């Protein structure tokens, strides 16, 4: 991008537009680009956009060139010609009314066509994903499979995904820039957005955002979309639908992610039930891995995490008030639908509405003081002694750092 912004160089702006538009299609440097042909929806939109950009560029060049030429040619010069007193011209007025009108017709026809195509009811056989917006996280339900999960959504390539959009509180908007347009989640109303990821898209991860201002942590209401192969999807879905059984990860380092899950069940743990497919952590593209800094004032000794005991953690989870909001299928005590469903929590790559990587380090701090980790977070402050803005004082009935390590161990075992 040139920093040159002088008016006589206005066409430079245009070249910059063109260059950037082209480079944006590359995708690696601009991981949330809207110029894609990954689905039927964004192909239709991008075709329309191409037309708009084409005519927009022509109008831009014509107007700016006419302007620059006029002010250059008719600048006042010593000895130059006197101004010609023209008051108007009917033919010209008709021309520059009719020509733009014609251009608009050329835009309007495909626009209306695309509106009706993209807003038609989703084709039969579409995979229904019920999306519920919450301040500030996403719930995804697959009625076909009986799955409830949060902030991470898997869809198979080649099959139409029909997102049924609702909100539990204020307005939100569901947007995966690389997949197509956005649609708002409106209180007391159900909206739809559907698209079919191309078969050749491959297994990939994409960013999703809330794009309707929804309060304090609007910026932190993100999610991830994984487009996977149909068999991978089936595997994932079958496992997600199962009840949660803690899976021990023997002798794994505290910050281990789910990298090992893709391998077939390890021969050393034959008693464990088969884990389903999870998007391999090693394959996660950089732009879907959150880099949000942890607030400096929130301290936690990571050494404690090595001694976390999942069984004690399960107890603390019950006693520490967690079940007031969170559900874990298979745990009859934890059934509350208020917060994110944690059934296969450890199979997720992010936590806190896509704000942090789902590892021990971040999870411990999140449990200790979610409100410090995420502005306005509705989750209670759990760590004893942490300041709580609602109590307007330190938390007295909560968990110690050691207990938090246990809860971390428990949650991270829910693969």
């Amino acid at each position, binding site marked *: 991008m040139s920093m040159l912004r002088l008016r006589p160089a206005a066409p430079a*702006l245009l070249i910059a537009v063109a260059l950037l538009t082209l480079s944006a299609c590359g995708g690696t440097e601009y991981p949330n680009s809207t110029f894609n042909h990954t689905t039927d929806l964004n192909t239709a939109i991008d075709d329309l956009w191409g037309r708009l950009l084409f005519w927009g560029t022509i109008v831009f060049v014509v107007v700016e060139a006419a302007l620059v030429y006029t002010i250059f040619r008719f600048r006042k010069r010593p000895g130059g010609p006197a101004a010609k007193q023209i008051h108007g011209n009917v033919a010209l007025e008709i021309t520059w009314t009719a020509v733009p009108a014609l251009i608009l017709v050329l835009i309007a026809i495909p*626009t209306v066509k695309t509106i009706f195509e993209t807003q038609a009811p989703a084709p039969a056989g579409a995979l229904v994903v019920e999306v519920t917006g919450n301040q500030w996280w996403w719930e995804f339900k697959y009625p076909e499979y009986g799955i409830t999960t949060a902030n991470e959504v898997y869809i198979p390539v080649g099959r139409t995904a029909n997102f049924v959009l609702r909100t539990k509180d204020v307005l939100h908007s569901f947007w995966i820039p690389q997949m197509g347009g956005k649609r*708002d989640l*409106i209180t*007391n109303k159900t909206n739809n957005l559907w698209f079919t990821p191309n078969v050749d898209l491959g297994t990939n991860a994409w960013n999703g955002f809330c794009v309707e*201002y929804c309060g304090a942590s609007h910026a932190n209401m993100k999610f991830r979309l994984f487009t996977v192969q149909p068999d991978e999807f089936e595997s994932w879905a079958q496992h997600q639908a199962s009840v949660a059984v803690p899976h021990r990860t023997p002798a794994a380092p505290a910050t281990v992610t789910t990298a090992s899950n893709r391998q077939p069940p390890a021969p050393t743990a034959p008693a464990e039930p088969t884990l389903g497919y999870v998007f391999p952590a090693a394959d996660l593209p950089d732009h879907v891995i959150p880099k949000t800094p942890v607030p400096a004032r929130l301290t936690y000794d990571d050494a404690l995490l090595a001694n976390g005991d999942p069984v004690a953690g399960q107890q603390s989870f019950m006693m520490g008030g967690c079940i007031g909001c969170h559900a874990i299928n298979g745990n009859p005590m934890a059934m509350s639908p208020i917060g994110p469903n944690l059934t296969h929590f450890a199979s997720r790559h992010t936590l806190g509405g896509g704000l942090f990587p789902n590892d021990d380090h971040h999870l411990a701090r999140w449990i200790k003081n979610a409100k410090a980790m995420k*502005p306005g977070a509705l989750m209670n402050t759990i760590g004893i002694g942490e300041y709580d803005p609602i109590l307007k004082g330190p938390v007295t009935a909560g968990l110690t750092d050691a207990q938090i390590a246990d809860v971390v161990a428990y949650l991270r075992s829910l693969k």
Partner: protein
Amino acid sequence: MASIAAPTTAAYASGENENTGIWSWITTVDHKRIGTLYLWTALFFFLVGGFEAVLIRTQLMRPNMGFVSAETYNQLFTMHGTTMVFLAIMPLSAAFFNYLIPLQIGARDVAFPRLNAFSYWVYLLGGIFITLPILFKLAPNGGWFGYAPLTTNRFSPGPNIDFWVLGLQILGISSLAAAFNFITTIINMRAPGMSLMRMPMFTWMSFVVQFLVVLAFPPITIALFFLLMDRFFGTTFYAIAAGADPLLWQHLFWVFGHPEVYILILPAFGLVSEVLPTFSKKPLFGYNVMVYSGIMIGFLGFGVWAHHMFAVGMGAVADSIFSLMTMLIGIPTGVKIFNWIATMWSGEIRFTVPMKFAIALIALFTIGGISGVMHSSPPADLQQTDTYFVVAHFHYVLFGGSIRGIFAGISFYYPKMTGRHLDESLGNWHFWLNFIGMNLTFFPMHFSGLLGMSRRIYTYDAGQGWDLFNMMATWGTYLLVVATAIFVWNFVRSRTRGAIAGNDPWGGATLEWSIPSPPPEYNFAQIPEVTSRYPLWDLKAPEKTAGIDHSHADAMTITDAHAVPVHEETERHTAKELGIPMPYPTVKPLVVAFSMVVMFCGLLFLRNGMFAVAMTITIGGGAAMVAGLYSWLTAPLE
């Protein structure tokens, strides 16, 4: 510039005249003084809104910055929008309505001088009311659009939104009162012979704007009233549990919000339509078409509101209709652009500072207009709405368009208002730094938006491909700070140090240039009889207006016995010397405005359950307002 009037003007400009005490400003009903008050107040709020923008941009300079907290950021972007729309651009336009309309139509004042003072005081007090909470971190935080149900008690339990609801209600009253006043003024106070189709283009565009205000503000008044009732009295207009439909707010808001866009831009269009002909030494090209296109823009403006809502799922039919209506509005807007260029064509263009701003408006508004057409296509808009692409779009329209028009207007009319010129070289610095800074700030936002960056986020993650564009935008903003500082310095300094300007420093065509600078309190010693669109060119450069229809007003309609042919007035007298009755200065409009604001303030106490206190203040304020009103209405004007 050497005219016999210069010494008098110089003496006046140095403040050697009476009636400059603070009390004279508080009690003034003179449209020029009220215009000046509007100008200074609105410029102050413009700086406040700009300062908020600087904080916003600093926070967004790099990913994951911690310069301000999320809550502070949300208050900042809400107040930036609210301030710029309601406290800066609209009142800057109002400054010109006040100052110029009576001068352009050859009147001695507006139709209702005291109502005019009332409008200003309500604006000032409302502006303070809505701005002050930011000092206590209690500023509104629901966005300038205030979408329900986020703004209801359930999701915004603090007093922040109360300030917003009540503040906008107060400001709406100011705008409405002013609009009734200017509609009446323009219809009924024109000099003999000044038919509608002879009005200067600024007056015409302002005329259209007043109708937009009169028709667009009631829906927002009602939408805000519903929200006020919900927040204070537990009604269910936006209550989720009662089955309310939050789209009600959005529709009512945008029924107001879209005409509001034209309320913000049309006065700027009017101003540049004055500047361009003057510095091209040619009459405005296609005057009639310019008038009709302005009316068309205003009229169609009421039929396009839902294009702000393509993502809400209105259905294909509604999307298509609003899309087509929106595209339609591009036509009269384009016509204006072409006519401006044709106005300069074959002229003798002088690149003064106001002319540069006017030309820049054409160049930059065109960009905003083109991106506007891009949003008008709903499927494409689904990739654009609520992203930085839209932020880029409306800043090209408002900062590239409205603000540029206003700066053109300020530098053009500063000599008329103060009797002195702004410094040309400081003006050039201001212009170029502003122009570069503006493009550096907002052009990259087109890219960050289309590359997936959404609006209203206080932070963004690293590695999303947006870093460069945000860095550019922030540096552009800093450049704008420098440019604005130069402008402020120039604006303040030139009041006492600028070169003396005569009646007509630029060779203007319209009546305001026929009287001394600054204009005497009575404006015109003798009301001129107008015979064409360009009365002063008829007098001084008749070759420019040779092709235009001239006619004297029908003798029957010249009922002002004192009307005389258009002439230059160089002598400065007092109204008393000339025997011109002037309205009495009065503090009553301020009293009424103040008690009305007190009445609204009372409601704030309901939040703390202080019912008795709230009712005492509200009823007390209301009673004082009614008493003030009676006293005002029963006192003679002049």
